[in-house]
């Protein structure tokens, strides 16, 4: 009897008067004999005994216990149906010193929120989940839950739950215990004083697991719902003991508290003054300032080829150097499946004026690294524009007389240089020699910033010089 007396005393972490409740503020909203009321008392007592009231954040679900925050004098967050594990994850990670407790029913945790609980457990999020399993949807009026028993007549299984239609009762504690992540999982019952005491001990151990920083803990409680079950409270408790418990065996399912080391505390954050360095924000260049006044120029460049030919990098280098040279620039890639299926293109604009659209629909420079690209874009090139083509000669049916066209075997030249990968840089040299679009020193500096590794930079420099020489030998010179 003394055990029952403990339950009837009001814990300190429960409000004396339920001010958040609209009416009947001295009593809970739960039905007489409901397991939620008992579970609340157990949790409240354990919080008191552990002296953690000020640290607790309680996450209340959608279900009959949606109003848990009416009662608990702790930090409270009410969340969407089934999502308590996700919310708890971020609460705990945001404030590792807090004690985060979720409280969920079986519809909430085992049906709509089954993905969230599985992943929170698997990540071993360091919070404590209380899982009140009454094998029915209480709040919505008695629909089938994933934990309803075979044969159970509910409002959505009016002829009884069948495996054929509804599958099997879901054993959440056993399921989660099969994961490597969780630290402590126990199933208790609220079917009599003995079960209740065991459940309380389990809640305490689960919270201690969290307090030690060991990881995920969960206590499932088989809980009476006399109203929906249409039983009096005594019969409902008997139902827990005699009908639910044989299907959902009570006892500890997992205890890794001895094997799991506490998580290391995060290092303190760096001072704000370190952010520019960490975020790799640019620092002012130390070498010569760029020339500011220059004649109007406007390059609308389309670069196209196969994926792997360095189309995007070539465009980026031109844009980087253009920016360093004081021009307004934009670089727009094709992305996604196009890349995967083998073709790639990008749009680059360099302008002494403001770049309006980054899309290049009428290029004045087309760099075509393969024949399909040449054929695709040749008609779009603006009169007076330049085409650089990777090949020995321009296919005769692609020849236009109102533009400058130059074929060079960039790929073979790159092979000669010892790396097929630098064909794009040979093109870069050719482009610069043909147009004088950018000072070579500026391009070299951009290349040194973008290209990773001394070895590559050295090959790239040779490739660029070679591209310049090849172009100069053709005597092509355009001003676009």
């Amino acid at each position, binding site marked *: 009897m003394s055990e029952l007396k403990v339950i009837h005393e009001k814990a300190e972490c429960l409000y004396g008067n339920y001010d958040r409740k609209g009416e009947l503020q001295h009593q809970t909203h739960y039905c007489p004999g409901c397991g939620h009321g008992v579970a609340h008392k157990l949790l409240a007592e354990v919080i008191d005994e552990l002296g953690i009231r000020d640290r607790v954040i309680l996450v209340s679900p959608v279900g009959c216990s949606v*109003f848990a925050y009416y009662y608990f004098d702790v930090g409270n967050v009410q969340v969407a149906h089934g999502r308590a594990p*996700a919310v708890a*994850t*971020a609460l705990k990670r945001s404030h590792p010193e*807090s004690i985060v407790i979720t409280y969920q029913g079986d519809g909430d945790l085992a049906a709509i929120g089954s993905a969230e609980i599985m992943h929170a457990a698997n990540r071993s999020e360091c919070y404590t989940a209380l899982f009140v399993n009454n094998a029915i949807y209480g709040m919505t009026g008695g629909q089938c839950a994933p934990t309803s028993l075979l044969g159970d007549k509910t409002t959505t299984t009016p002829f009884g739950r069948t495996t054929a239609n509804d599958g099997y009762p879901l054993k959440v504690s056993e399921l989660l215990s099969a994961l490597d992540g969780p630290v402590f999982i126990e199933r208790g019952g609220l079917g009599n004083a003995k079960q209740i005491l065991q459940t309380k001990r389990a809640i305490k151990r689960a919270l201690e697991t969290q307090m030690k920083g060991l990881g995920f803990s969960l206590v499932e409680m088989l809980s009476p719902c006399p109203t929906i079950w249409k039983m009096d409270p005594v019969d409902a408790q008997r139902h827990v003991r005699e009908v639910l418990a044989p299907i959902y065996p009570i006892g500890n399912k997992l205890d890794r508290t001895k094997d799991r080391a506490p998580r290391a505390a995060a290092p303190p954050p760096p001072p*704000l003054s370190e*952010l520019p360095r960490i975020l790799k924000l640019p620092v002012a260049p130390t070498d010569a300032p760029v020339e500011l006044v220059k004649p109007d120029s406007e390059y609308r460049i389309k670069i196209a080829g196969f994926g792997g030919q360095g189309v995007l990098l070539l465009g980026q280098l031109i844009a980087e150097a253009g920016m360093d040279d004081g021009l307004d620039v934009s670089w*727009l890639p094709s992305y*996604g499946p196009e890349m995967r299926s083998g073709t790639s293109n990008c749009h680059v604009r360099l302008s002494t004026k403001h770049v309006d*659209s980054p899309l290049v629909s009428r290029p004045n420079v087309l760099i075509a690294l393969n024949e399909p690209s040449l054929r695709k874009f040749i008609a779009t090139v603006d009169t007076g524009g330049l085409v650089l083509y990777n090949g020995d000669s321009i296919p005769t049916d692609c020849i236009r007389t109102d533009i400058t066209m130059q074929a060079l075997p960039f790929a073979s030249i790159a092979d000669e240089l010892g790396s097929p990968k630098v064909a794009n840089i040979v093109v870069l040299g050719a482009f610069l020699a043909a147009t004088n679009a950018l000072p070579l020193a500026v391009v070299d500096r951009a290349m040194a910033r973008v290209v990773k590794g001394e070895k590559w930079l050295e090959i790239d420099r040779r490739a660029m010089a070679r591209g310049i020489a090849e172009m100069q030998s053709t005597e092509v010179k355009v001003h676009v």
Partner: protein
Amino acid sequence: MPKQLIKGNEALMKGAILAGCRGFYGYPITPANEITEAAAYYLPQVGGTFLQAESEVAAINMVYGASSAGVRCMTASSGPGISLMAEGISYLAGSELPCVIADITRGGPGLGNIAPEQSDYFQVVKGGGHGCYRTLVLAPACAQEMADLTYLAFDLADQYRTPAVILADGFIGQMMEPVEFTLAARAPRLPEWAVDGTASTRRNLISSIYLQPDDLEKHIRMLEAKYARMAHNETRWENYKTDDAEIVFVGYGISSRILKSVVEMMRARDIRAGLLRPITLFPFPSDELRRLAGQAERFFVVELSTGQMVEDVRLAVEGRCPVEFYGRCGGNAPSAEEIFEEVFAHV
């Protein structure tokens, strides 16, 4: 301050961290991945939290948790993921939780494709989730604005205790442009309403449930008044050569960039064209459109969709002058030349 050539998506995340963002919860999706990857790279280095969630449903609820905890936090996704987040966004709005959500829009409906569209306007600007709520929606048109408007979004989200959305198309997210990061690094703060597991915040409650109709109506009216304040104080737009414009183009994001080219083409032919570019999509610059309706002969709206924002333009203009529309979709963008021809095709 020197400039950095950087993708819009990465600029967005740097802007976020400078604004004090210390929590990112997301799920991979093209074309938003660079945001998520930048968060994964930078946040752990500044004492923040990055977590790849099991779904967008989980991600947005993690944002709900981090925001409840008082952390400046965000997520990023694209159409399909934003659809999954709709319930969570409604909860965030209902619980008055600030956060930033980036939608780097791709082609829909369904799986559609990953190429750029502006077809999430209805979903993002009109709500998407359930109930009477709005989110602040900012529409960057360049990489610089990806950083600057995200920074602003965090401030406004806090100020109004509301989710704020950065609505950008795949072009704006994927392209590289020079960005100058002049934004001052903000220290993380803890709002007084947050729940952080300490004695001083113990009485705080984050919730969106109001059981009694009168209580819920009061709450909704309070939100309504907040949205009206936002409309009054936070409407932003850019006028580009609209002073004497007879044809006023309207477009946001990448469309506005193409339309600037069109305006230039027209001006070169002595046609008085201008552009009204909404920067906030909610609140929408309706008053400015109404004002321009007094001078313009017609409006011409361009979107990468079959026509979504155009409905708001028509509502604002209230029939005072014709509002025409041209849209491309599926990942196609109109060229300036194409729009130019389209404008005169119907005269």
